[in-house]
């Protein structure tokens, strides 16, 4: 079993960057696994593996990108604005909003920063 570092080029004009590693019995399977492991969310346009120093590219760039709608697995596939408004409306209609005290938008401290400064003073 060999570990193959996986490389990507984000855009046509990008350099190769390492994005991870796959375990595979040989380079052909490594290339297949590399696509499924690291290119599902449109991360890049070119995929390659490092086979003991040799960079082996996925020959057909069309294999690197999706061909049918995959918006369901990226953030852009979830425009939440309209749904948030619809939920607000529904809650108002039902009159069920729970109006208890909560942090004000303008009154929020960065908790991590303050906790650390407390520690260094202690």
């Amino acid at each position, binding site marked *: *079993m*060999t570990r193959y570092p996986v490389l990507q080029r984000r855009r046509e004009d990008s350099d190769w960057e390492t*994005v*991870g*590693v796959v*375990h*595979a*019995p040989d380079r052909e*399977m490594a290339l297949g696994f590399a696509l499924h*492991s690291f290119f*599902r*969310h449109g991360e890049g346009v070119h995929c390659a593996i490092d086979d003991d120093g040799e960079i082996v590219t996925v020959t057909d760039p069309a294999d690197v990108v999706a061909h049918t709608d995959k918006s*369901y*697995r*990226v*953030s852009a*596939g*979830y425009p*939440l604005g309209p*749904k*948030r408004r*619809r*939920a*607000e*409306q*529904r*809650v108002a209609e*039902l009159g*069920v*909003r*729970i*109006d*208890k*005290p*909560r*942090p*004000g938008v303008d*009154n*929020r*401290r960065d*908790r*991590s920063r303050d*906790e650390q400064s407390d*520690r260094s003073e202690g």
Partner: protein
Amino acid sequence: MSTIIEPEQDLEARTAAFVEHVQSGGQVEADDWMPEEYRTLAIKFIEMHANSEMMGALPEREWIARAPSLRRKMSLTAKVQDEVGHGHMIYRVAEDLGKSRVDMLTDLMNGRTKFHNVFHYPTKSWGDVAVIGSLVDGAAIITQTALLTTSLAPYARVMKRVCAEESFHQRHGEDLLLELASGTPAQREMLQEAVDRWWVPIMHFFGPKTPAEKDRLLHWRIKTELNETLRQRFFDRYVPKLWDLGISIPDEALAYDAASDSWTWTEPSWDELREVASGNGPMTATRLSWRIWMSDANAWARELMDLPRLDLTHPTPRTAA
């Protein structure tokens, strides 16, 4: 970033220099010198994280078959797939520290290692899918974001990638929540009932209010923030959201105090957490057996992929799940 520690210093001095390095924000690579305690704690922490990603996949996976729309069927599959991928990447970090993947998977399957308690609980409805996708995941994202500045550099790099993929999970989770909250009375009830069941496990997830001086993981900066800090951040982010949707939280004492700018809340029974963490929680045995069954039947496939077969010793029988 490579270590600045000089090799000729004695162990105590080296360790002190290491602590200073990490406590002032420095990082180390897997092949840098590190104190034994650091390595041991890091492996344990990271292994548990990877195990949780793998086991977290199982409750959600059960709903792929039952998803009520084509798009949700795909998106749930994709989310579970991402979690498996995260497990993949996080196991790699522990491997680079010295524990092999086959040992980690075998230990997980034989009940010898732990994973986060929230993944031991059964799912009962689509409400659970929404709660896991929004609140449970939300809790995980808070802890993962805090790990972006962990002292172990390869772990930080993986967290960067994990957090990037989690952005789709967060939006997906909120999408699920909003649909139920603005849906039929039955859907709203489904959501409320699920929140009522998952709240305590989520409180458990953040761990007890361990003070800084007792928190070894914080000492080494493997973790970067206190458990309570992260839990308070969770309250800030999700309690107002739920209240705005008219969803109540099953903790009478949960309240925001403006003067101290903090939330008071009821600490749950940590006994339940200890039991669950040591492998006796509801559904644990089922899930562990499930994974074992899968491996038994298909051991040849691992061999074909040139991977070691897994040790298939069955766990000693436990009390009924």
